């Protein structure tokens, strides 16, 4: 997973206690979201090939997709050193962003690998 993230402001940590103005750099935030998008796309392709080679059909494949996405989220959180608010403005960014975008790629590579390995 290409997880190069720019830290923005380390003062964010005290923001829970102080309730002060949010300070973050929009460019770094955008860069972080791009990183999330890339890693999700990459992981959905890998997950699709994996599901196809393992021969999952039907519901199992989608379960695997959710599993892969969950692993990606955990990996991203670990990459952010478990302090999500230092890198993103909300939890939704790291957990939900790009979730549906990778589904088509996943289905394509799933079908591709499944057909090549199991059907022919």
């Amino acid at each position, binding site marked *: 997973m290409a997880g190069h993230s720019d830290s923005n402001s380390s003062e964010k940590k005290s923001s829970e206690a102080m309730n002060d103005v949010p300070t973050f750099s929009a460019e770094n935030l955008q860069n972080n979201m791009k990183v999330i998008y890339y890693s999700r796309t990459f992981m959905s392709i890998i997950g699709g090939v994996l599901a196809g080679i393992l021969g999952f059909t039907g519901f199992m494949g989608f379960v695997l997709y959710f599993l892969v996405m969950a692993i990606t989220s955990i990996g991203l959180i670990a990459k952010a050193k478990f302090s999500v608010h230092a890198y993103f403005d909300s939890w939704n960014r790291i957990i939900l962003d790009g979730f549906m975008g990778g589904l088509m790629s996943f289905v*394509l590579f799933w079908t591709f690998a499944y057909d090549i390995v199991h059907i022919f």
Partner: protein
Amino acid sequence: MAEDLVLDTAIRDWVLIPLSVVMVLIGILRYFVSKLMRSSQVPDPKIVKEGQVIVRARNLRAGANFIPPKSFRSRRVYFSNEENGLLFVPKGQAQNAQAQMFSDPNMAMDMMKKNLSMIIPQTLTFAWVNFFFSGFVAAKIPFPLTQRFRSMLQNGIDLSTVDVSYVSSRSWYFLNLFGLRGLFSLILGEENATDDTQRMMQMSGFGFDPTKSLGAEKDGLDIVQHEWALPKFEHRAEAVLKKLIR
């Protein structure tokens, strides 16, 4: 499934893989062609000026809480007063974006070029797939589908008993069309051709109207609740320093 179909390996070697490879190569080709055709037009100074004004107003809005109330108010008046504020657009002067677009043939030409670079390869590939690879089962989708999908996914195959998850090459083409978008964004960088065309479609829908965005920025600036952050910073500094001492 009781009756599993056995597909010829020639289908894999001559339909499934070539189709995907061709789609990927066409996507890459389209990216470079659209890059070549993108004419670097000289931007209109008025539009550039308005864009810079918008950026400055946005910066003011983002950093509003870091300057004293008086400074903020004077800056806001500078931007949005009703006589000669930078963001204020007189009613009669707001020209129609649609009319402006038609008066400038370069813009329409550029848009047409971009749309054509999208449509032509797609039509050609679709015709190619229809002509050469129709009339047989090309792939099997690994999840069950309802009967409704039969007419869409299995056209060219006139067998009503085959399971719906066996699909023709046309469906494989569509699956590629949608699924490869993610791959393109990985190998071509973010500004790939599909994103570009999507943006163009959005723009051609309502037209880029600088006066409208000026007005929106003015409204946004007007409703900013100013609250100077500096007095609170002493508390914050105190907290940080206390933490350091401990």
